[in-house]
């Protein structure tokens, strides 16, 4: 696995595909289980991005293998919890990657031309 983590510095994920970006964004806020990620992305995008479980888990597998996401040991309050479920959270390098992507998006959105186009 460590071998893969080193690959991370190369831009193997960047620029992030929209669904990947949204997955990371959902995990940035709090630790979530798989279905929680789906619901969060769906709400955040007003239903525009509707992830299906199977592609989501393929992505999660990649992210886990690459050390961007890891399994969380922490649990929410017991009454909300289903003990079988696994929760995921961003690793520090995941956070760095998300931040880098966020900067890229802002830089893009900040350019005059993009702003002009958006207002047109």
């Amino acid at each position, binding site marked *: 696995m460590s071998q893969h983590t080193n690959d991370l510095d190369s831009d193997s994920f960047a620029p992030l595909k929209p669904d990947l970006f949204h997955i990371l964004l959902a995990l940035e806020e709090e630790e979530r*289980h798989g*279905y929680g990620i*789906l619901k969060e992305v769906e709400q955040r995008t007003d239903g525009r991005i509707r992830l299906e479980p*199977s592609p989501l*888990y*393929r992505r999660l*597998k990649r992210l*886990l293998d690459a050390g961007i996401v890891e399994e969380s040991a922490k649990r929410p309050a017991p009454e909300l919890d289903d003990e079988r*479920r*696994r929760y995921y959270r961003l690793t520090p390098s995941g956070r760095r990657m998300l931040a880098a992507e966020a900067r890229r998006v802002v830089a893009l959105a900040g350019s005059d031309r993009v702003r002009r186009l958006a207002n047109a």
Partner: protein
Amino acid sequence: MPDHVLVRFCERAFRRLLLVYPKTFRAELGDDLLDAHRDRCRDEWEQRGWLGLTAYWTRTSARMLHDGIGERLAALRSRSRRPRRYVLDSVRQDLRFAFRSLMNKPGFSAVIVLTLALGIGVNAAIFSIVDGVLLRSLPYPNPAQLVRIWETNTQADNRFVELSFADYAYIRDNSSSFTATAAFSQASRDLVDAYGNPTEIVIGRVVDGLFSLFGVSPILGRDFLPDDTQRGVPVVILSHALWQARYGSDPSIIGKTVHIRAQPFTVVGVLPHTSGYPLSADVWRPLIGDNQDEDREFHVIARLAQGVSVAQASAEIRVLAAQLEAAEPDLNENISAWVQPMQAMLVRNARTPLLILLGAVAFVLLIACANVANLLMARGTTRQQEVAVRTALGASRSRIVRQLLTESLLLALLGGGAGLLAGYWALDTILAISPQNTPRLAEVALDGRIVAAMTVISVITGAVFGLLPALQASRPDLHANLKAEGRAQTGNVSVRRVQRGLVITEVALTTVLAIGAGLLITSFSRMLHLERGFATENVLLVRVEPGTLHLERNAIALFDDVLERVRPLPGVQSAVLSTMNPMAPRGLTLSIQIATDPDPRIDLPRVRWHSTSPDFFSVVGIPLQAGRFFDDRDNETAPRVILINQAFADAHFGGDDPIGKQLSRPAVEIVGVVGNVTPLAESVPRPTMYSPFRQQPWPGAYVVVRSATDPLPLAEAIRQQVWAVDATIPLDDITTVELAIAETVASPRFHMLLVGVFALLALVLAGVGIYGVMSYAVNQRTRELGLRQALGAADGDLLGMVMRQGLAMALAGIMSGLVAAFWLTRLLSTLLYDVAPTDPRMFAGVALLLTTVAAAACFFPARRATLVDPMVALRYE
């Protein structure tokens, strides 16, 4: 709240589908993924009910298949990254080992390679023909757009009617489905020039840009110009074949003059080599106004516009045909029109026989494969000890399966290679004997695609039929196999069961093939021995067609001259005249009316009509049934008389004696009844009447020559005599009745030969298969047989026991084969003459034949069973 049953069903289904994912993925994320799916299912169910759930289930199933396979591929890629060297090494090792083990048993390997070569060889050959004739697109640009336009006579149920010029022009001017249309009509004409003897050619009269429609332009000279058609300029374009054969590829032919039916034409172009119909005429000329009549003689070709389908074009011209019918009801009553793809049109008669041949070779291949599988399985069982040792030394099962698979793949590839060589040879042979009227034969070749297809088939054969024995042999029963110490297992029930199944299958396939071949052979022999109603030996037919030029000259005088010169030739016994070719007694039909018929009908019956010399009937051996033949009294000045055939008498006079009866139309008296002449293509003889040639001369007839020996060598002398009378008469159509018969049965003979050979191959293979399995069984049971013998079993008992087992297997195959043949032989019905596809005698005969073969194949192993020495067998332990 418990989940709805549908939700639970989905969950179960997803759990199954999860198996598509690689094990690592399942272990890490599988349960989680299923949880997410269940949550989603619940949501869908609550929000959208069963519709939403079903949609989700369908979508997700496909998605999971896709993702699972994707994950597996990804896992494979990441795994193969490191140990590639290792994999390559072990493949090399497998190959080396496979070679060595095949070389250890050269007989076994040779039998397998030969068997496969046989199966692959015949398939390569027939596949090449099917590909060249049926599948490959026509050698013109955008061939799929080329279509033939037909009219159809809905009342006469004739779907293949040519168009009249007016109909063609109307469709050309009013349809929007085509980017180009062209038409031509064909006729036989005599060609006379300074380059050789007068010859009969097929001349095509072209309307509009026929050649450009096919994307063909002359290699010498020019295409027709619109002006040629409009002004009726007498110009011609020669076919490449005629230019080569008659004019020796003379490059200065352009501008020279040739005479067709005594009219001069200027050569303006030479076409490139074309492959058969529609560009098959010898000489082309533009259609000039004189032929724009009502005759339905135009072959209409069109090119579909982009995006227009055949069905759409058909629909459009059907409407146009309806408009034509409305405009001119008397000309176009019941006439509709349709469009046929050119390719389908060209091969429509060749299709069924070729598909049947393809089926036959597929059977041969399957039988060969069954044999190979049997041999490999027998081999696998004898190698169980070797496998056990290798397993004990640490080989994994997959490694052993791979080793065994490598061996069978190697065998399959060797067999495939040998098969391709055999295929080249078989294709040459088949093409040499194939009937010349098969379309597109010139395009047939065993090319790269066939080689590729056959290689794939070989590999699949090797993989499929090698895998089963490999799995079987590698089944880890280490303890028992190691203990066996060189003695193969006696009780490998499942191997024997599979072997039996394979033999039963191949016997069944062979039964079907043998019945098919038997039917074709019977049909062919019935054709040959058909009672034709006339003598077929030593009869020469010379068509003498002076053509329209001589219409005004007295045909009687011309033919009198010809006969007078031919009769004294040495070898000629008799020479007579007839407009009828007894091999194809078609020709003119006339309406008749019988004088005594009390109620003259409006639709008069039509009968065939021919004109003959008085002694024609005795010369060709058509028997007189009643009355008299013609004689010299029946000349120009005598009362008009006719002979009728038996079919005429039966149809129009029933039990009455027709002799002396009069026809009022034409006004003639019947003086005799002669026997029927049955052509091959017709099952029932048609009513026919004959007139004396002197009373009804015709500007074209056959000179029928009877000789004591083969009359063909007389042809040249007869030609010279006819040309001495008139040097412009083309004399290309000279044949003996025997040759003509051979020609009409060429196709049936071809199909019979091929299916017969395939059936024979199948029979041999099936025999070998039964023999192999029985001998293997006897070998495996040596100990048991020896024991039985030691306990007092007689030779006859042992022989009977083994024979019974073998025959039971064969009979099961024969019975299944008979049932299958009962359904399959009806596909042959269009190829059969005078024999039913389910002829019970044929079925019984083939069953008997196969039983005999099976008995013979069982006998030798069974006899070996009786020869087992009890002492040796017992020491076998």
